[in-house]
């Protein structure tokens, strides 16, 4: 039965319509696959009963004719998305047992389109992390292993559970969120596709906030076509999010022609860094050559402020987080600390927050509080916001000069082993985001597609960065790259 979970979203959609398979069969095989993959810890909450109910409804809609786009497609949903009546904790102890009374806009759209919820996926607490080791539910283990080794590897983060689940064929696709690379980096580490759309494309309503000017939702899938199908449904204007764009969402899937003749693709000099593994250099060069062969013009470009992106990001994101996470105070929902006699309300806040937040979240709230505090605001926060303008201008200049997309590696290394980066070296962990944060700072769409394996057998990804609102173009270029790369490696089941 588990073989059923191997299909892509596009294949499942077509087979459901012809009656070759049923939504219940598909849901059942995902539920079984999830039950048998406990070692990966990809799901923090599975919802088998709800999944079977939703699948039953999907089968009825298919039988009645004219089913909606995702009818019967089983999905994993990152724990950051609020799902009505289903535990939604952002993998944090401070939201202990939180069951929202409402549904996020993105998931509401998915359910309206007939998709089936099979469970909530594990993640780094409040989406702060690049290895999915900072979760109240424990680390996620990648389905991938180095050749001849049983060392446990990170699936990346923060959408690590989603990436591991999709790569291990536990569900057909999953949602993620990306504040500094949290969709693209785990997609690259896990040998799958992940797209972060333009800021404002997906509503942030009902997604637990990390850094509001950077957060965007997007899908993690096993093909570019599936990413197009999912994004088409997830995107759209929502008046409840004032930054949600009121512009039409194209039918992304219909734009996948693979014809990229005449497109101009830039290779940024600043992304060539010392110490980048040879395999990444090689796959990057090969990717550029493939796009050229497909008819694109590939040129060298410069993004001069790239090196300041990471420090600017690690000022802005924690600043916004410290403000967003002020709401977790033990009053209205989630955890409240046990109080001693005589404790007042401030003691309640401070004890609740000390018990509820994990070390990385605490660290970022404190950094954010510091850079926003009197005397430091101008030196750090204001300056970072001005540097952010410069980073955005770097991209705008290239787009004005006729560059359609930019090709880079997604990550500076392949996936590392769990525990290989020491807990007391946060900056080394932050360096994972070096090629992805620029895209969030500039609000642009970015996609990671699998590019190949390194010498130890771990997947690597290439990132394409597109113009604002041009996800259709971007997906088509990614589609052309995907066709040329023909990545077909899958993790050998050991779990």
């Amino acid at each position, binding site marked *: 039965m588990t073989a059923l979970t191997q299909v892509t979203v596009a294949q499942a959609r077509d087979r459901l319509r012809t009656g070759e398979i049923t939504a219940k069969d598909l849901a059942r095989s995902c539920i079984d696959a999830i039950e048998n993959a406990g070692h990966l810890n990809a799901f923090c909450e599975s919802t088998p009963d709800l999944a079977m109910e939703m699948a039953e409804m999907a089968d009825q809609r298919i039988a009645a004719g004219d089913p909606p786009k995702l009818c019967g497609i089983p999905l994993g949903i990152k724990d950051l998305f609020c799902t009505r009546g289903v535990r939604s904790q952002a993998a944090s102890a401070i939201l202990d*047992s939180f*069951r929202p009374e409402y549904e996020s806009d993105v998931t509401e759209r998915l359910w309206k389109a007939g998709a089936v919820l099979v469970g909530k996926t594990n993640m780094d607490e409040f989406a702060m992390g690049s290895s999915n080791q900072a979760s109240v539910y424990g680390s996620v283990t990648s389905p991938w292993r180095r050749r001849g080794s049983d060392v446990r590897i990170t699936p990346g983060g923060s959408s690590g559970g989603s990436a591991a689940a999709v790569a291990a064929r536990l569900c057909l696709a999953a949602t993620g969120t990306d504040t500094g690379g949290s969709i693209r980096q785990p997609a690259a580490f896990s040998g799958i596709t992940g797209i972060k759309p333009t*800021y404002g494309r997906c509503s942030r309503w009902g997604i637990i906030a990390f850094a509001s000017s950077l957060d965007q939702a997007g899908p993690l899938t096993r093909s570019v076509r599936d990413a197009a199908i999912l994004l088409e449904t997830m995107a759209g204007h929502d*008046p409840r999010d004032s930054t949600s764009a009121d512009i039409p969402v194209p039918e992304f899937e219909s734009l996948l022609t693979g014809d990229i003749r005449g497109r101009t693709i830039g290779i940024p000099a600043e992304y060539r860094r010392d110490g980048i593994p040879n395999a990444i250099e090689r796959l990057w060069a090969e990717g550029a050559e493939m796009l050229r062969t497909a008819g694109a013009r590939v040129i060298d470009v410069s993004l001069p402020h790239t090196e300041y992106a990471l420090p600017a990001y690690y000022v802005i994101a924690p600043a916004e987080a410290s403000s967003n996470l002020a709401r977790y105070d033990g009053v209205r929902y989630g955890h409240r600390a046990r109080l001693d006699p005589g404790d007042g309300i401030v003691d*309640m806040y401070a004890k609740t927050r000390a018990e509820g937040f994990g070390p990385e979240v605490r*660290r970022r709230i*404190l950094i954010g509080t*510091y850079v926003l505090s009197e005397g430091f605001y101008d030196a750090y926060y204001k*300056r970072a916001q001005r540097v952010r*303008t410069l980073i955005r201008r770097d991209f705008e200049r290239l787009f004005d000069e006729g560059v359609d997309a930019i090709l880079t590696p997604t990550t500076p290394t392949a996936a590392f082993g769990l525990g290989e980066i020491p807990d007391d070296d946060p900056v080394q962990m932050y360096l994972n985001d070096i090629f992805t944060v620029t895209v969030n700072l500039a609000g642009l769409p970015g996609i990671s597609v699998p590019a190949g394996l390194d010498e130890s057998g771990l997947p690597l990804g290439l990132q394409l960065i597109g113009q604002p609102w041009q996800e259709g173009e971007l997906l088509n270029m990614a589609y052309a790259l995907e066709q040329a790369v023909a990545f077909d490696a899958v993790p050998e089941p050991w779990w």
Partner: protein
Amino acid sequence: MSIDRDTARRVANLARIDVPEGEIDGLADELSGIITFMQALRDVNVDGVPAMTSVTPMEFKRRDDEVTDGNFSEKVLSNAPDCREGYFVVPKVVE
């Protein structure tokens, strides 16, 4: 630039997060490491550059100022750690 013990203590207090006295030194070191990493921003010439305040330039929509939902206090209170008679309950605030 480094963060000393007093600054670490002050920031923890501002953020309303209890940090045991024994962890203050370690915390100050950790925060200093991150702040040092941010020093690179000082090398950038930002003269005349405006701060980015809107990610995607757009005109904010206006709407009528009117009540559009409400009357679901039970839902609002459904996740409360402590509530009584339709109110959130907290420790005494005013002596």
